[in-house]
């Protein structure tokens, strides 16, 4: 038995492994590097240099211009994503609690049907959703988009929470009932405090899904209510005037930053949550 420390620090196979990994990392990072470099270049710089060349003058003009164009839509996205994530997670938690611990006649069938929601392509719900939003008077509003995202996300959040709660022993709920606690007291005092890992998974998943959504955004919003993904597309796809790649790249970076931030902050919970239930604890 050799512990890793016993091995020579630089064997040939080790160097090979690291080299391969390094190349993979570089390949992965190239698009990001190109985006970042381009976003800090001036338009002249872009037209003369190549993609990977260092900017001759580091210029923030692209970022300033991009922020000026998309900041309204950035806040739209926040206004859509934050409530939609919170509401869908909250309802998903409650659904999962009921479906795993307060089974009723037909609850398995109900859960089975709900799972269909996970496999439904976005496109199939466009028309009915549009019709419903119209009837509710929510067409082309951020609230309308919140509603669509909550409804669409429920299938996933319910699945997450239900599968997490199934691994919690029934006896806990029984004990709490004998202690005199009711439905919501048990949920709030016993079940929710145990749910941190799965709440994190749900928040990250939903945030990424909703923030990155383009299809619902482009269909159910217009003008001032558009999320940033749609605005970015509009910005990049303009056919008038010269292409301002620095602005495009800066705007794309702005659109991508929040999801990156969420992963950095809560990523460890994500991994932990995905493996939760594998080991009893």
């Amino acid at each position, binding site marked *: 038995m050799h512990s890793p420390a016993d091995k020579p620090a630089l064997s040939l196979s080790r160097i090979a492994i690291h080299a391969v990994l390094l190349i993979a990392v570089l390949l992965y990072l190239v698009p990001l590097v190109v985006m970042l470099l381009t976003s800090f270049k001036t338009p002249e710089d872009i037209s003369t240099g190549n993609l990977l060349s260092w900017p001759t003058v580091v210029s923030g003009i692209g970022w300033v211009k991009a922020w000026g164009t998309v900041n309204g839509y950035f806040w739209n996205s926040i206004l859509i994503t934050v409530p939609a994530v919170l509401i869908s997670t909250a309802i998903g938690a409650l659904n999962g609690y009921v479906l795993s611990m307060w089974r009723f006649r037909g609850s398995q069938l109900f859960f089975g049907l709900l799972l269909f929601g996970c496999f439904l392509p976005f496109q199939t719900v466009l028309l009915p959703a549009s019709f419903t939003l119209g009837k509710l008077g929510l067409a082309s509003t951020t609230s309308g988009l919140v509603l669509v995202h909550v409804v669409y996300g429920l299938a996933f959040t319910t699945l997450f929470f239900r599968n997490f709660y199934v691994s919690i*022993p029934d*006896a*806990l709920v*029984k*004990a*709490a*009932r*004998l*202690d*005199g*606690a009711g439905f919501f*007291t048990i949920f709030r*005092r*016993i079940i929710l*405090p*145990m749910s941190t890992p799965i709440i994190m998974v749900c928040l990250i998943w939903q945030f990424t899904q909703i923030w990155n959504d383009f299809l619902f955004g482009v269909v159910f919003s217009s003008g001032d209510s558009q999320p940033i993904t749609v605005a970015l597309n509009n910005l990049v796809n303009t056919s008038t005037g010269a292409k301002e790649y620095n602005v495009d790249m800066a705007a794309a970076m702005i659109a991508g930053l929040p999801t990156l931030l969420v992963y950095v902050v809560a990523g460890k919970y994500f991994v932990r949550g995905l493996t939760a239930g594998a080991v009893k*604890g």
Partner: protein
Amino acid sequence: MATLEIRNVNKTYGSGLPDTLKAIQLSIKDGEFLILVGPSGCGKSTLMNCIAGLENITGGAILIDDQDVSGMSPKDRDIAMVFQSYALYPTMSVRENIEFGLKIRKMPQAAIDEEVARVAKLLQIEHLLARKPAQLSGGQQQRVAMGRALARRPKIYLFDEPLSNLDAKLRVEMRTEMKLMHQRLKTTTVYVTHDQIEAMTLGDKVAVMKDGIIQQFGTPQQIYNDPANQFVASFIGSPPMNFIPVRLAKQEGRLLALLDSGQARCELPLGVASDELDGREIILGIRPEQIALGTGEGNGLPGIRAEVQVTEPTGPDLLVFVTLNQTKVCCRLAPDVACRVGDSLNLQFDPARVLLFDAASGERLDLNTANASVKDNVTRLKGR
């Protein structure tokens, strides 16, 4: 402090499905310790959940202190339960676990503190109050689970196999402690177990269950000495009772059971002869400790020579296995008996202590008091 009565309770999980509980009839007095014992799937845990109100009954009634609680929710029944898995709230400290039920019942904080202190002292868990359940050993978790039940001073305690997750040594310790606790607190208790030793040692009353039916309900001594049928006789006792198929024969106005060890034969007198039973095959039940080693021919008990096939010294006893009527029979002898495999032993049976069972139904037969026994059996059956 309460009486518990279970009147003709039925439970089924849906029409068409077999009944989980069939006409359960029990009653225990204030302060009694009732054991529900039986193999897994016999309905004992279901019955306990029904008493707790965690499951609804399909028919009959459950009465606590002569009040029908069948329709009441668990929290209104004033009972506390200790679960097999302990079911401690993992995010709460030991103190919070014990306090939870009291807080929900809106007890003033001063009274809660006093109660937690009392229970913690009783169970010697004072030094653990700040810890989380995950930081406790199995035995400590078990104490906390009991503490949570004791804290409310409920009318009835329910224990659902509370010792089965402990290792063997701790289980024996906790068993004694539970008995002490019950002697001190004298609270009516229902205790579910599949362990016949717990049933014998802890209970004032024992209900042996199988297939959702109470096979027998009585004191541990009644269950042990006077089992209602072959199932009860086989379930209680370790090593279990021997069951030997025998043929009955009528001779000189007496009924005899014929035993054959391969090297000898023996006629065991069983009672008054009746034509009905002549030539019938029945099951003869005898506990290992009721087979004695014959010292001579002097004491008048019938005996038989049999060859020793296996010996198992357990320390306090020597278990010797012989074959009678092609059936393996275990005899529990004193540890200083010198015998080796292949030896022949003279084994004696006291006909008065032998039990007889119907070969087909497994019901008890009593030949000595022929007619009265039939009546006994009928009343026993009705009692279910």
